[in-house]
């Protein structure tokens, strides 16, 4: 099984390179995932990362793009709850990248 090495400890990953165990997540792991995604985390990124993680913990489901936009608009306002803003922060796809950095399972492909 693939893993991520953090402080000389191996953290297991799933076959898609996402965190295998939700509860293993730390901010340090987030920074490492971001590096692999070629993203330097700013406070704006962190806000989204914490948002999707909180979303998962509440709904037991990784948010699909459309619903991430909607939930963010409701909670943080339309300036942040729009896909342009999210794609600026996570160019390869906010649902895909932010969930990985937040230590969540990969969202379903088909939604």
């Amino acid at each position: 099984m693939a893993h991520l090495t953090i402080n000389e400890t191996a953290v297991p990953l799933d076959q898609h390179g996402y965190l295998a165990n939700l509860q293993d997540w730390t901010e340090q792991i987030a920074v490492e995932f971001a590096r692999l995604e070629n993203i330097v985390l700013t406070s704006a990124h962190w806000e989204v990362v914490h948002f999707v993680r909180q979303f998962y913990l509440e709904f037991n489901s990784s948010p699909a793009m459309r619903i991430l936009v909607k939930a963010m608009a409701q909670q943080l306002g339309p300036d942040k709850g729009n896909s342009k803003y999210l794609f600026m922060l996570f160019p390869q796809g906010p649902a895909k990248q932010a969930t990985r950095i937040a230590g969540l399972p990969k969202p379903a492909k088909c939604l």
Partner: protein
Amino acid sequence: MARFGLLLTCNGFANQNLASVMLFARAALNKGHEIDHLFLYQDAVYSVAAHTDLPADEPDLASELAQFCQQHAIALLFCITAAEKRGVVSDIRPARAGYIAAGLAEFAMRQVNIDKLVQF
């Protein structure tokens, strides 16, 4: 004349739904109706497995269905997520010829094209 969508949700080997859906589709087309799509979800995605091994005296309904849909230009779609979860398709395991990977989103959008959805 009506436009139909057809939804399959149970395992095509363990059930008669593949036979039924083809009988229904033929009858509908013969009566001049149209069929927009056929969507495989839940256990119906097992029919997408390309490596099934059937003895010669057992009907290969999954292949027949693909031929039928091709002949009549019916979109034959399956839910990629449901198929991947069941190990039916993967990066190294392509879908059976004629079956097109799609998502629930596409199925949802196609509902506006049809008058009736029939589930098998």
